[in-house]
């Protein structure tokens, strides 16, 4: 099979089937989905309560928060950068929004826009510094993680902000179906849109090119800096939205919103096949990865494993997922 012309002639059936199979396995999300199905079956066999309505709802609820950030992180990773400050940004945006609504007594919409604005602004700052000054994203966003945590304390004085306006509690309390509310709806819509953008649009293609080889992308006329900065802004804004959904869910602007999320999000999307080196991965994959991670965490709780072991499991799974991914690429995509 070496030329375009040859391919159009019908290959033998067995070969065709083999190729289809390889092509199917080579699709990034399939491996993670299969692993997820196995894990669900495993936990369910050990403890049928794992598939109880309450537990499923709890898992989906958590995923809806971190999943929103995972969408942004996936986009950013595709362009070849990453952001460690997402948790801090989520927390900071939430408390800023809460303060605007309470201490400043501004309307709820202004508060929400203010929160999103803070996230987007931090994203812009991260992007400008990484792209224009050439400071590695690791350093810049790690710094921003600490800055954000400090600012949370500065804004709140260390105390949670409440009571929040009734409208916020309504957003947090809405139940569309199955106990899932606004945050889940937003998460699903954002995921579908982002997945479509990466897969089907010129914008998405240019992002893959930017993350694959910035020099090549630049030479074919893509404004790589703009794409990177844009992706940082998207991550910032989505982190802010996730933080505010948690705030609405809790009914208060807690100072610990978002803490520790940065690593969960990165671990999750990496499990879902998004490359840390840029240019590879899909939003669907990243989202499924996060879901898998949360299923494991919850499953271990349900079957009564000590919480220390849960952390260990998360670490092992992440490394294994990346290892499997490398093997998959080598054997199914390269065919060597």
């Amino acid at each position, binding site marked *: 099979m070496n030329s*375009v012309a040859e391919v159009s002639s019908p290959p033998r059936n067995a070969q065709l089937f083999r190729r289809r199979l390889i092509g199917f396995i080579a699709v990034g999300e399939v491996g993670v989905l299969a692993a997820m199905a196995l894990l669900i079956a495993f936990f369910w066999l050990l403890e049928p309560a794992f598939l109880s309505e309450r537990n499923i709802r709890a898992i989906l609820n958590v995923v809806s928060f971190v999943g929103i950030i995972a969408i942004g992180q996936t986009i950013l990773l595709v362009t070849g950068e990453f952001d460690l400050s997402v948790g801090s940004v989520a927390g900071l945006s939430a408390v800023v929004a809460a303060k605007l609504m309470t201490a400043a007594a501004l309307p709820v919409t202004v508060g929400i826009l203010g929160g999103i604005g803070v996230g987007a602004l931090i994203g812009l700052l991260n992007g400008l510094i990484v792209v224009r000054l050439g400071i590695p994203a690791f350093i810049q966003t790690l710094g921003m993680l600490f800055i954000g945590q400090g600012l949370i304390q500065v804004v709140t004085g260390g105390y949670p902000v409440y009571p929040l306006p009734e409208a916020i509690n309504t957003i947090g309390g809405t139940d569309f179906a199955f106990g899932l509310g606004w945050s889940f709806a937003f998460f699903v819509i954002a995921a579908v849109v982002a997945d479509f953008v990466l897969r089907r649009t010129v914008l998405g293609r240019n992002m893959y090119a930017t993350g*694959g080889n910035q020099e090549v992308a630049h030479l074919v006329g893509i404004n790589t800096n703009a794409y990177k900065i844009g992706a940082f802004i998207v991550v910032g804004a989505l982190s802010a939205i996730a933080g505010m959904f948690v705030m609405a869910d809790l009914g208060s602007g807690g100072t610990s919103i978002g803490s520790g999320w940065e690593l969960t999000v990165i671990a999750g999307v990496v499990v879902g096949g998004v490359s840390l080196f840029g240019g590879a991965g899909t939003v669907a994959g990243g989202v499924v990865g996060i879901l898998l991670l949360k299923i494991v965490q919850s499953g271990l709780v349900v079957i009564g494993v000590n919480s220390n072991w849960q952390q260990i499991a998360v670490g092992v799974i992440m490394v294994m997922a990346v290892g499997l991914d490398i093997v998959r690429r080598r054997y199914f995509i390269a065919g060597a």
Partner: protein
Amino acid sequence: MSTTQEPLFSATAIAKNFGGVQALRGVDFDVVTGEIHALLGQNGAGKSTLVKILNGVHPAGSYTGTIQLDGRPVSFASPADARSNGVGYVPQEIEVLEQLSVAENVFAGRTGLGDGMLVHQRKLEQRAGEIFADLGIDINPRAYVASLTSAQRHLVIIARAIVQKPRVLMLDEPTASLSGTEVDALFSVLRRLKAQGVAMIYITHRLPEVLAICDRATVLRDGQVAVRIAREDFDAETFIFSMSGQRLQRLFPEHSAPVGAPTALDVRHLTVAGHSGAVHGARDINLSVAAGEIVGLAGLLGSGRSEILHGIYGRVPADGEIRVTGRTVSIRSPRDARAAGIALLTEDRKRDGLLFNLPVGANITIGNLAPLSRHGMVRGRLERSSILAAMSALNVKASSPQASVTHLSGGNQQKLLFARVLMRAPKVLLLDEPTKGVDAATRHEIYRLVVELAEKGVGLLIVASEIEELIGLCDRCLVVADGRIVDEFGRGEGGEDRVLWSVTAAQAERHALAAQVSS
């Protein structure tokens, strides 16, 4: 060279399969002491695969067949294993450690120089300096590899293989990015190694090189040995015929400069700053290319030819005035250049050509998606059909538009990049080493393509290190030395000697001037 001599290194019945692609189907191959054995074949014939097997890149167990060194069977688990058995290798693709110095790259993996754990920085630099002097290479051993041009990087990896003092040395297209004088320097080193009894396997697409230094040639076709040719029967036409099964009537298609055609590209006082030692830049360049004209930039490695192209394309900051079809354009980035109708084919496919994370099809359309999309959405069907059209127009051999670009042969990668730059129908096409690593038949296709484009009114400006190629293809040649244009001649008004002569004259003049200034 008598072939009755016992082979030093031999391979028998080598077969290799890459997930369905049969790259080699039972190849027998050997080299004897003090022999330079040419391994020839079209792109994708399996040459690189064979030497990668002989060198442990494809480890024992991943192929079938046997390898013998000194009459004893050997199996290499890795290139390091092969190296410790005295088998050295210069890969086709440049593999360097960008963040290390040239000297550290030359001694990569052996920076302790055999005694202990410490790195002898000064000794490394000194030894690297000696090797470069030997090879006639002008590179500072302390420079960082990141600042080198791709030809210079190639010299670094050649030096890396030679310092190991191998008994068998395999060179996979070592001269693909070198020009005349560097090739001569390399050849004199290879001749010396040959006199010392080193057995060499030499892969190239440049047939004159085979005539110049090889003792025997083996031609691969579709993973099999097509023919073995002894030195007495060497002849370029025979080579081409046995590689491709076709006879070429004429190497360079006929073309003559258009008369009275409008100017496609006009460059005035272009100055490109040099950076970081190895790259010298260009000063006060004035040139123009008419629509339908093929103009060549000749010169030695590092003379500033590529910098001129990069300056015009906005890849590096440049001062000066650029006009495209009479209109003055301001070019500050490749984006501006493309908008003005200029396209560039870069020299180093791996570093600034291909996107390895995207499949063949997306590699062709990247940067060209505007006409293939509506409201920002890529129109899948339209994209696919235009990819297939581009692939068949240029005869790109890949299993499908979804195939990975990693395993395409060098020539097919090159054609893919051509397809990318041509998709926009540029008015001015800048080509940097368009036939690098491309086999004779494909080369011929590329020459035809160049002439065809010229006939359609595209202005072409070409950099190539093979001077015969420029002379055969171009309507006019500009000679570049030290970042300046020092000579110009039309088709039939000069050859290789004239280029070398004007380069030497320019250098002598500069030295005289420097002497005057300092006295």
